[in-house]
């Protein structure tokens, strides 16, 4: 059996999980590594909870089973909590600090845990919380939050900064390469400052 490094990217439909996973996949090609991934398509995209699996170095199936992800990258704090059981013991969570409140909270009065409650419940995992929106705006566009998150998570990935930069420039629209590279750098620097 060959080992892979398993990354789960989670968020809310429309937040750019697929672009983020494409960047990781492309970075694997830059590094000449095999890679497998699985995505949510179809109706689940309509503002629903979405998950993307990427197995860096993977040669078998694309799915990551619960309890085995090396890293979880989450674009929404609530989604980090929803998927945390996928994390292996000793794994790392890198998550945005923002919460998109589910519509059911307003229409049906569903209870949504607060930011502080969620952080408390994630305390026993190695978890880093990132101001993705703030850094994306600093980089030039709120739309670059997904790339900020990749930058922040990059320290935990077995892919070099060069490979990830090259992958970003291949995957994002040509006009936005500079902004996205800046977003990546800001995300990456954010974690360097933390540690």
């Amino acid at each position: 059996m060959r080992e892979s490094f398993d990354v789960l990217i989670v968020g809310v439909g429309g937040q750019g999980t697929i672009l983020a996973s494409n960047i990781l996949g492309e970075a694997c090609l830059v590094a000449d590594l095999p890679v497998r991934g699985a995505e949510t398509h179809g109706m689940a995209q309509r503002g629903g909870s979405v998950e993307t699996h990427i197995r860096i170095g993977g040669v078998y199936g694309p799915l990551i089973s619960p309890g085995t992800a090396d890293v979880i990258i989450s674009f929404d704090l609530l989604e980090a909590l929803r998927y945390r059981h996928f994390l292996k013991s000793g794994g790392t969570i890198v998550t945005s600090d923002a919460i998109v409140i589910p519509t059911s909270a307003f229409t049906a009065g569903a209870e949504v845990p607060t930011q502080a409650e969620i952080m408390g419940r994630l305390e026993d995992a190695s978890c880093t919380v990132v101001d993705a929106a703030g850094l994306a705006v600093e980089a030039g566009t709120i739309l670059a939050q997904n790339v900020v998150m990749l930058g922040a998570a990059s320290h935990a990935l077995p892919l070099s900064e060069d490979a990830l930069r090259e992958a970003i420039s291949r995957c994002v629209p040509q006009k936005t390469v500079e902004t996205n590279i800046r977003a990546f750098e800001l995300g990456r620097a954010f974690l360097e400052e933390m540690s």
Partner: protein
Amino acid sequence: MGGAVDQYIINPVFPYLLSGMNTRYMLGNEVIAHACLEAEIDFASGYPGTPSSEVIDYLRHQKDREFYVEWSVNEKVAFENALAAAWTGIRSLVTMKHVGLNVAADPLLTSAYTGVTGGFVILSADDPYAHSSQNEQDSRRYALFAKIPCLDPASVREAHSMMKAAFAISEEVGLPVLFRPTTRICHSKSDADPGVPGTGHRTGAFVRNPQQYVVIPKHTRVLHKKLNEKQPALAKMFVEGGFNTADVRGKTGIISGGIAASYAEELISEGVSFAKIGAYPIDAAWLKAFVDQHETILVIEELSPVIEEAVRMAATTTVVHGKMDGHLPMEGELSPAAVAQAMTSAGFAPTKTYPEVVPEEGIPARPPLLCAGCGHRAVFYAIKKVFKDGIFPSDIGCYTLGIQLGVVDTTICMGASVTVGSGIAHSGETRPVICTIGDSTFLHTGIQGLLNAVYNGANMTVVILDNRITAMTGHQPNPNTGVTATGVASPPISLEAICRSVGAPWVETVSAYDLTGLLYALKTAKDREGVKVIVARQPCVIAARREGIRRKPYVVDPEVCTGCGLCVKFGCPAIEFYNEKAVITSLCSGCSVCADICPAGAIHKGGAK
């Protein structure tokens, strides 16, 4: 590990590297479509359906296209078009999701009798766990039923090579070939080595041969015999061609196929034999020879126990485990953890075990929703207002999400909203019946239901949710859109004219954003007898945005808002509620419906009062 790539790898734990010169990270469906280009496809048709849609989408967006491609109005129509193309000697593909094959089952079963001259591949994508489907049927059963070959890839890379081979196989045996990927192939991504698209395209020429193409009883009896005579050679071909492989390593063995084989390969222990089924029919003698060499066999496959039934038939003294004795589930999809559990349960130690983990509790669900500004939501709102005691048959599309709004009582298959509605209307049930159906679904199989309802005098209201496109599967054009699959302008059909021509005596058209108009039309329909049709029209909000249509977002005046919550109950994801006041977020696309709902007049277009 080459020096040039070392700089890209921080932690060189991986045992081997890619070697392809043109390796790309691609979606399974893109790889499958690209394989068709490499196989020099001449004709492609299909009807959208998750997880199959991206195959035709990839083909229709090719710039230098030397083949014909269409979105057809339904799967039977798509199938017959592609079949006929293959009868003229050219290479032809038809795509659909598994339940679409039910719609195309009529030509499918007899196309095996007529056979083909050009390569004909039927792609039917299965959806274990029903991620986006109404059932978990197994297309391999159809291939066995029709007595045609079936290819079942275990990975994206295998899907690539199998699809390339499928056309040649079809030509060699003169039969349609069923290509069966599952969701985890179609919507997986993988490193892949797409080849150069071929340029050797053919031109169709129909050769008259009534003995083959006119299936009157006299001809079809002969054709059936010929079809049966082809079967043994097919089974042998798949062993000799390396589609079905067996590796004997010990006294116990695992047999697997499809994506499950990838999971099994990751977890199989040394000394356990492994056989992989990539194509059907399975050669019974070959299978028996493998099974007989083992004391115990575990069969691992998704959906129906197709391989397992063949193994049980072949086994004499060998103990066989699988779904049929409870080691694997009969429903849902498999995963590495599920396969490891099955191995453990059947006495096969997996190389990896998975921790038992429990998801966190108390997290509000985040299901998919109708978009902010979706016209369907306003129509459902109006229906519920007017028909408080109504019965609401619905159909397949984004609007099935109307279940969250309490306005979807039935959904079974494409087009069945109208027929379920007329069935209930004729049953003696006295409450009013109001069915909802999208434009693409109406054109797919809704028209016949309406014709029947009018002909037989049903008392019901049919609301066509006309958003001008096939939205849920990724915004494919349909005859209502005014453009073909390849972007050529076509005359948009008139839904109203279709409804009137099948005899509907009352057909009204309303904007789906015009709440007052919707309520009026629905009330009028309620007071009339017979079949009433309302066309509620508004382009899909996503498609409209892509076309450059921008509306000013709406805002809530907090001074005027009474906090009654009626706008929140509307269920639009752009409306939130804090401190007893409603707030409209940046998701707003300016449909204005909430402004009509607000009894206090607190909602108005941004920037003006």
